[in-house]
């Protein structure tokens, strides 16, 4: 504690605190306070739209045992994992191509092109997918006009598959960039060394490139998984209200049913699930990063 007495250090600490305090204040007010409120609400009792100070775990019991909630949570998980899988599988080859096969001078142009979808609003992109996949959409009417099908396919719209397609398209750039960065960091002589030691290009990819780009892949997984599991707009628009995900459920409880306690319990449960999955991935990441740094 002798160090704490040092006036120079104290002054430094004070000025440091002064510098972070605006951000700290901002974070406390806009993040910690609402979070605490939600946590508090989740253990209170709500009746007829009023929340009363009766502590209970009843909300959690309802969320974790009610078949409807469980089904919706499972759907959220399935969609998020599906989107993550599809996104990463699409993003990896693109990132690989740009990193390995595009001339260095043209790489930034390629990355710029990849971000073009962001130039339009997400809502517009979602509606575009509706136009493409919808009952009277581009695919259905196209297939009908060439006579492959007689009536519109039902299974391409308003289902989990359509949700995954829409979300995967939206999140692809977020996945491409971290994978691209991790591929860029790989010393190219390592790939030559792999071949020099007798492995084919494909085998070298499995044994050298893929493991070394894993940190980027896991970053991409987290970046895609976390926001998609809580996505609210897409299920509403693409699913047409028939495919609610966890966020839609929260909205219903919070705003329509006005059961803030149950809504909070759903929110906390969802956070818990995301937290567990995310920590799992971070641990995986550490395994891959471990021997390197």
């Amino acid at each position: 504690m002798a160090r704490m007495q040092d006036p120079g250090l104290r002054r430094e600490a004070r000025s440091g605190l002064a510098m972070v305090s605006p951000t700290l204040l901002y974070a406390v007010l806009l993040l910690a306070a609402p979070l605490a409120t939600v946590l508090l609400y989740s253990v209170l009792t709500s009746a007829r739209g009023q929340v009363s100070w009766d502590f209970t775990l009843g909300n959690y019991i309802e969320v974790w045992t009610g078949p409807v909630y469980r089904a919706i949570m499972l759907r959220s998980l399935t969609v998020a994992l599906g989107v993550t899988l599809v996104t990463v599988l699409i993003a990896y080859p693109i990132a690989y191509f740009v990193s390995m096969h595009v001339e260095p001078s043209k790489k930034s142009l390629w990355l710029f092109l990849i971000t073009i979808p962001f130039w339009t609003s997400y809502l517009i992109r979602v509606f575009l997918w509706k136009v493409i996949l919808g009952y009277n959409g581009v695919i259905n009417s196209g297939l009908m006009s060439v006579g492959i099908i007689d009536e519109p396919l039902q299974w391409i719209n308003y289902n989990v598959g359509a949700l995954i397609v829409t979300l995967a398209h939206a999140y692809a750039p977020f996945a491409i960039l971290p994978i691209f960065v991790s591929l860029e960091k790989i010393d190219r002589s390592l790939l030559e060394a792999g071949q020099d030691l007798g492995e084919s290009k494909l085998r070298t990819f499995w044994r050298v490139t893929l493991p070394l780009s894993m940190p980027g892949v896991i970053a991409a997984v987290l970046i895609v998984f976390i926001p998609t599991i809580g996505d609210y707009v897409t299920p509403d628009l693409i699913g047409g209200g028939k495919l609610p995900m966890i966020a839609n459920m929260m909205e219903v409880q919070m705003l329509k049913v006005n059961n803030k306690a149950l809504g909070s319990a759903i929110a906390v449960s969802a956070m818990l699930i995301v937290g567990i999955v995310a920590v799992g991935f971070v641990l995986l990441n550490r395994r891959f990063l471990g021997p390197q740094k």
Partner: protein
Amino acid sequence: MSDAKTMIEFRDVHKYYGDYHALRGISASIRAGEFFSLLGPSGCGKTTLLRTIAGFEGIDKGAVLLDGKDMADVPANKRPTNMVFQSYAIFPHLSVEENVGFGLRRDPRSKTEKAAAVAEALEMVGLKGFGKRAAHALSGGQRQRVALARALILKPKVLLLDEPLSALDKKMREQMQVELIKLQRQVGITFVLVTHDQEEALVMSDRIAVMFEGEIAQLADPETLYRRPNSKKVADFIGTMNFIPCQVLSESGGQIEVDAKGLGRVALSPDQCPPGNGDTAMVGLRPETLTLLYPGQTTAERTVEGLVDEVIYFGDMTYYDVYLGGTDVEVRLSMRNVPGRPILEVGSKVDVAWSPSALVLFR
């Protein structure tokens, strides 16, 4: 050595990068079991040539033969060569033993036999007991040893070394040079080394190809290269050479007589006169072939008066820059600092002994 079979043969190898002519008709052969060096300044094509052996660079014309077989359609992973990369290219996600055993995946031996082979390879390069270490925790010298073990464990016909010592400090580099020579004798594999360090090439190689601008300027053993460089450029690149302007007086029956400024008339034998390439005639003299005579010393060699212009003290050696015979021709000569030999001062008048046989004529 001379009856050893040919391991690598270049037949008029050309390589272009766009418009840039990187290799301009390389023809040479490297013998089996030889320690061969490609020496030259950066950008001379030496690394490109090495990479054509490994299969990382295709060639535009000519042929590269390995152990008698044309390598044109053989990909890098099927060639009987292994490489030690300049950056060592140690896989950062694998341990030392996983790195060394990387190429053994297809080896039909059992797991225990492979582990034994890895341990043996590590012992050979002086890294016994390092197997479980993470590759990133190694020092530069240790990485280099891992790279060597990883390549040699596959028993290649040719080991390619791309400036393997350039990242090491001076002490370490000298130590590794000796170790590499020993290792090469021990395993008997053909080593091809790329380096820009002439000293390194002289120390390590059986034969050296000096390259400039995509061509081999001279291919010879280190002594010939040092004593009888075939051009001014090679002489200048390897070691220090004093160039003294001269006039060719007569040429008859192989004997050439020149008048070198400051030295006077000298008769040269044919082996001192490499084919000319149109340069101004000059004779070259290495610093250590010139000797300062101290008072009372005599010599059977020819002598010339000199005036000390500069004294550079190196600890074991002293370099003197000396004007010869009252002319403006200045040469550098080196003297070993043995006991009883004082360091001379600037402005001293000295006698310099030199031998005509040490001269090389460039023209």
